[in-house]
């Protein structure tokens, strides 16, 4: 089978083209560097099927970032039959810079000129025929988004494969042309494939190339010194000269094919206008904070825009009280879209539960069978499933921001703040992706050039609470508010605070790591700011569908199996007989064994005989975070005969049972959320983190997660307990003591940071002196 590689600049539409060619649903975003690993698919519409490989977006074939090395190695070593070089027509010069490098390889090549339609709309025009002639490669004008000319592109690519091709360089007539030609001859004698490409890289003194061909590298160096330098007077830096020569050639030969209607065409001016407000000196950051608040508010709030007082009489007039269908929309206040969808699905899942019971009873199933199916399986799966709408709503908002190009601006605005914590604005994107799922977020850190910075970022990504952790936050927050009425009755206040706790913990950990074990300063921040565009509806729906599919699959596989296991372990004793009371079950004895570890965190030995459920839930969370609430769902049904009555959502009711049956306190519950948010993430995320960190060092990452989760949760618990009943318990002094400890800790961190700054300055000075 033929194998074609898609190569091009980040954000030039490669993945959109890949999806159009292969019919897959890979993630696309308006952010440079969404694809960071190669991805394969098959194009089936042609005469013969063709293997399509989507390479990470790159600006150059230099050896500096991991994704550049991935793309380079693929092109040189796996030798695709054809390179489809996707070129963004709205950004011709910079895109063609990569083209001039790719065409030095001997592989057949074709240019897919993307977004030419956007260009036409601006009134600009590219003379495709002239471009084709000047570049010397076939050029096909396409629209990856609309799927225009995709089949034509593939036809011409297949034609290109039949006509073999040898590499050509635009540097032939430059000052270094003779040096490149000499190196090429030397490499040809050694039978090196793609000699021209390697020759150019040798002249550039590319790290990888010099290491592979040391003898030729020395010959090139002396050739430049003896010949080029004397003849032309060029003795400077070859790397600069070559980059310069490429751009000069592009401006002279290719840019002329582009005619601009007017300076500052429509589309760019739209972006400029939007940026006047969105990245405004004064309004930029406040606007970002408002957007962030609105996103969470529209997803979680049960009192939208705080109109509760106005809405309430209306609700009473409607007869909301006790009416399940009407209270989907408002209870105390107007529900946000996220909550409305949650309520609707929740109503459905509890109805399915009722039908299951009725159906099984009707069939004459024994009580343990209906127990297993209704409580064990459906109870667990449903308590997780009903959170899907809110996960999707949250994900939708973030996808819109990413697709539109706004996220890149946020990185631009926040870089200065991030730098204080030792990471560049680039780290912002993986962190935000972490709110969806840690796995792609960890993989996305590959766009970060500095290894230490990248590893530190991978470690804190799980602290950006992912979709699977959302049920824990929402169910427990809901349970707390329903039983105690703290936080003014607003469960979403607790949810926001937990998100904030995760972010703050991440930043503090970054600060400490970047000044101790992962020492270093924030890496350079040189990033393209893409043009704004309206998010594509189809693209958004693809994102959502992918997310929903993944979540539902997980609910009916991993989570279902864990529910069955938890149900069996909690209903059977070590003698493999069903137990009368759950205290005698296998699960209880395992839980009781582990329980003491969690005593400092508030959900250990201080709870009553049922308290082990929290230990068990935390352990099942290591498989998948949804399992925490699913375990509650399964166990709640075993603990009490009937669920609390009233309009409590799935999950929330289970937590209420847990609170009632174990005597757990509010601070301990908060500490429990914090523990689950910060500790070792799920299997999938652990595997991803292992893949993204240096070999043999992963045990430190695991230890890091354990330590951070225990320390943070213990702090949350002890503070919460003290402020809960300070004076009554004679705890006034302990408040002073703990405030003292916090101040000392803060001073210690500050000390480390300042010491490091001092040392860095010293090192820089020493380096300077040495160079002189």
């Amino acid at each position, binding site marked *: 089978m033929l194998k074609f590689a898609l190569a091009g600049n980040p954000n030039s539409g490669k993945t959109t083209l890949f999806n159009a060619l292969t019919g897959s649903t890979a993630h696309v975003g308006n952010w440079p560097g969404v694809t960071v690993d190669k991805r394969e698919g098959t194009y089936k519409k042609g005469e013969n099927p063709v293997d399509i490989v989507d390479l990470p977006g790159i600006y150059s074939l230099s050896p500096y970032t991991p994704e550049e090395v991935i793309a380079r190695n693929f092109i040189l070593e796996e030798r695709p039959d054809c390179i489809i070089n996707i070129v963004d027509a709205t950004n011709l010069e*910079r895109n063609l810079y990569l083209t001039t490098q790719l065409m030095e390889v001997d592989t057949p090549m074709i240019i897919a000129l993307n977004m030419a339609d956007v260009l036409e709309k601006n009134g600009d025009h590219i003379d495709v025929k002239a471009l084709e002639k000047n570049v010397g490669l076939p050029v096909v004008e396409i629209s990856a988004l609309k799927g225009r000319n995709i089949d034509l592109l593939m036809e011409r690519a297949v034609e290109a494969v039949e006509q073999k091709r040898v590499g050509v360089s635009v540097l032939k007539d430059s000052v270094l042309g003779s040096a490149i030609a000499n190196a090429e001859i030397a490499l040809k004698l050694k039978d090196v494939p793609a000699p021209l490409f390697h020759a150019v890289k040798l002249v550039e003194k590319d790290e990888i190339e010099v290491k592979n061909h040391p003898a030729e590298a020395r010959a090139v160096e002396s050739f430049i010194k003896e010949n080029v330098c004397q003849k032309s007077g060029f003795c400077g830096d070859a790397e600069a000269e070559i980059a310069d020569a490429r751009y000069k050639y592009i401006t002279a030969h290719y840019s002329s094919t582009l005619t601009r209607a007017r300076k500052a065409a429509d589309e760019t001016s739209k972006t400029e206008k939007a940026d006047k407000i969105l990245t405004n000196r004064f309004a930029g950051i406040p606007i970002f904070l408002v957007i962030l608040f609105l996103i969470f508010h529209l997803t979680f709030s049960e009192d939208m825009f705080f109109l509760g007082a106005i809405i309430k009489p209306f609700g009473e007039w409607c007869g909301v009280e006790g009416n399940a269908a009407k209270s989907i929309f408002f209870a105390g206040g107007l529900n946000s879209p996220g909550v409305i969808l949650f309520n609707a699905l929740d109503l459905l899942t509890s109805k399915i539960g009722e039908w299951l019971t009725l159906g099984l009873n009707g069939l004459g199933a024994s009580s343990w069978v209906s127990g297993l199916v209704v409580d064990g399986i459906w109870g667990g799966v449903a308590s997780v499933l009903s959170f899907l709408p809110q996960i999707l709503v949250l994900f939708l908002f973030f996808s819109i921001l990413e697709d539109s190009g706004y996220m890149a601006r946020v990185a631009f605005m926040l870089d*200065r703040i991030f730098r204080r914590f030792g990471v560049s604005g680039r780290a912002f994107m993986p962190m935000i992706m972490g709110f969806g799922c840690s796995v792609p977020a960890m993989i996305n850190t590959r766009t970060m050039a500095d290894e230490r910075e990248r590893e530190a970022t991978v470690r804190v990504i799980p602290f950006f609470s992912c979709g699977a952790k959302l049920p824990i936050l929402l169910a427990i927050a809901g349970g707390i508010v329903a039983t105690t009425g703290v936080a003014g009755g607003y469960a979403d206040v607790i949810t926001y605070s937990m998100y904030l706790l995760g972010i703050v913990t991440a930043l503090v950990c970054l600060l400490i790591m970047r000044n101790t074990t992962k020492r270093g300063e924030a890496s350079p921040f*040189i990033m393209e700011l893409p043009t704004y565009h309206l998010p594509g509806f189809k693209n958004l729906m693809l994102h959502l569908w992918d997310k929903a599919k993944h979540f539902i699959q997980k609910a009916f596989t991993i989570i279902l199996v864990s529910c069955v296991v938890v149900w069996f372990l909690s209903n059977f004793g070590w003698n493999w007989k069903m137990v009368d009371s759950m205290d005698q079950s296998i699960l209880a004895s395992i839980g009781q064994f582990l329980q003491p570890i969690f005593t400092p965190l508030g959900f250990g030995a201080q709870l009553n005989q049922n308290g082990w459920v929290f230990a068990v839930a935390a352990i099942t969370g290591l498989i998948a975070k949804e399992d925490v609430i699913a375990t509650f769902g399964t166990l709640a049904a075993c603990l009490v005969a009937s669920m609390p009555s009233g309009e409590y959502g799935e999950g929330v009711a289970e937590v209420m049972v847990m609170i009632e049956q174990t005597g757990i306190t509010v601070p301990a519950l908060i500490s429990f959320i914090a523990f689950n948010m910060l500790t070792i993430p799920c299997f999938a995320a652990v595997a991803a983190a292992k893949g993204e960190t240096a070999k043999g060092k992963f045990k430190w990452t695991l230890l890091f997660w354990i330590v951070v989760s225990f320390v943070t949760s213990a702090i949350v618990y002890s503070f919460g307990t003290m402020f809960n009943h300070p004076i009554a318990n004679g705890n006034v002094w302990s408040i002073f003591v703990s405030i003292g400890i916090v101040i000392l800790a803060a001073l210690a961190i500050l000390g480390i940071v300042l010491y490091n700054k001092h040392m860095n300055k010293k090192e820089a000075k020493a380096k300077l002196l040495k160079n002189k």
Partner: protein
Amino acid sequence: MKLLSQFKVGERGVVVAVHGEGAIRRRLFDMGITPGAEIYLRKKAPLGDPMEVSLRGYELTLRNAEAAHVEMK
């Protein structure tokens, strides 16, 4: 001699040379900051750093520290 980092918002200039070394320098070249390229300083981030520049028909952001490697006229 004037550096890009010393430019004021709204100022326009032509790159004369790119200093620095290794990855940063290469990155600047790859993004099109080569001698002869025309650069327009569009704006600075709300906190004063990084900056947004316009060159070769697109928008690029870089920090003052990186812009200090770029010599302009």
